[in-house]
């Protein structure tokens, strides 16, 4: 086998090792590659900036699991940091069983910093029923009667003025699959006119683009990059920016291997 053929069939273990090293080094020693902010991210930021902390309550739907957390959890953290910075209160809910554990992490951190559960934020926990649960919660947001800490919603001042999803100042779905942003669009945005944006996994971005173009999604955080962009807008450093360097190097390595494979392919064809 000549070297052109060898370059077309590099052992996968070599690719894995190079990728592992390429991803690990920037995580340990970040490079700090500058990042431009997408319009979709800026749109979410602008809506939150325009909310009134005295009257508006934001609904955050934590619809992801630990598997997709590296891609979307930094977005959830970045959005909560922005809400906290602006003094906007939020209500959490989940239509994925693992969702409450993801919001629990964020709430633990906020409580450690002196914010108060029940005053600054609450979590209604998981509601079973997939897309149908989203429909039910949209029409009657008091259908969940107790929060994750066992308090009845009548005793939670944050829920005082909330009857349907339309009563929230802004709804953000942090979603990694089904049910996710498209279920919110079908059940809450189109029939009720709910103001909605989403933070989604990178792989879902192409499928979500038509909904942003049509205005059904008012804004969108595109995976880990969206989180990094949001952190740069709010000025609160988080995991998103730190992990973007690793993503950059990872993409470069993949492109380099594709280039090597094609170069060798053309060389072998010429011979």
């Amino acid at each position, binding site marked *: 086998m000549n070297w052109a053929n060898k370059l077309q069939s590099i052992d*996968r273990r070599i*690719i*894995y090792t190079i*990728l592992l090293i390429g*991803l690990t080094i920037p995580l340990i020693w970040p490079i700090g*590659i*500058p*990042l*431009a902010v*997408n319009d979709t991210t800026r749109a979410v930021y602008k809506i939150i900036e325009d909310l009134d902390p005295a009257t508006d309550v934001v609904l955050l739907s934590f619809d992801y699991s*630990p*598997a*997709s*957390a*590296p891609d979307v959890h930094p977005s959830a953290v970045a959005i909560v940091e922005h809400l906290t910075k602006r003094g906007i209160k939020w209500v959490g809910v989940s239509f994925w069983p*693992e969702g409450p*554990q993801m919001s*629990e*992490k964020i709430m633990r951190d906020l409580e450690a910093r002196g914010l108060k559960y029940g005053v600054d934020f609450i979590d209604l926990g998981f509601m*079973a*029923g*997939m897309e*149908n*649960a989203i*429909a*039910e919660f949209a*029409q*009657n947001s008091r*259908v969940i009667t107790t929060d*994750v*800490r*066992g308090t009845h919603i009548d005793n939670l001042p944050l829920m005082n003025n909330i009857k349907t999803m339309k009563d929230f100042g802004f709804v953000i779905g942090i979603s990694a699959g089904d049910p996710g942003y498209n279920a919110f669009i079908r059940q809450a945005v189109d*029939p009720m006119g709910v103001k909605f944006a989403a933070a989604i996994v*990178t792989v879902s*971005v*192409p*499928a979500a*683009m*038509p909904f942003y*173009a049509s205005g059904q999604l008012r804004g969108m955080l595109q995976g880990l*990059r969206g989180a*990094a962009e949001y952190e740069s807008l709010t000025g609160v450093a988080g995991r998103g920016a730190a992990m*973007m*360097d690793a*993503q*950059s*190097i*990872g*993409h*470069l*390595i*993949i*492109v380099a*291997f*594709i280039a*090597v*494979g*094609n170069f060798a*392919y*053309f060389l072998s064809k010429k011979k």
Partner: protein
Amino acid sequence: MRREIPLLITFLVGIIFLFGPITTGNIPVLEMSFRQIVSTYLSPWTTIITAFAIGLASINLLRLHGSYVARKRSGWINSAALVISMLFFTVARIIRELRPTDPEVVAFYGRIFDNIAAPLSGAMFAILAFYIASASYRAFRARSLEASVLLVAAIIVMLGAAPVGALIWDYFPSLQRWLLAVPNTAGQRAIIIGAAIGGFATSLRILFGLERGYLGGD
């Protein structure tokens, strides 16, 4: 009657769901709108049925893998791991739900979730990056015009999406955004609208009893 009654229920429920979002005003005699029937009765029922479906699937999974363990079939150790971890997490979560204000119970569940479930799930997802790297290297070859277009688009999207792309060439991010916003959006819209029309046609077939696969048998 075993077939007619389910067909009738399907037709009635389907019609109510169909008319719910597109009609206003009350139905004579019932004094309720289609929308009210959906939100008051059908939505909670569907939620309960979905929850039961998850319960049923869990019991089925336990029975299947329990029998693999009992018969010591090949790979039974994996089945045993599944049964034990499933029961452990189910019991732990039930206790967590029953005692939501007990800080020790909350902390214990948090610990097992953060230190067992989260790293395992994260690791499974992260492995994809390595498969994708290897698969891209093998699959993206400019063997034909179509493959070349795909290859160029993939490189633009990959470099445009990562911050390093802008350092290599200023136009990578704007080209990536254009690919996503124009050709991709057009293609996705075609898929979404096509699938919606297909779904509507299938729904009509189910409503009118032409499609009976969901009843089982024949």
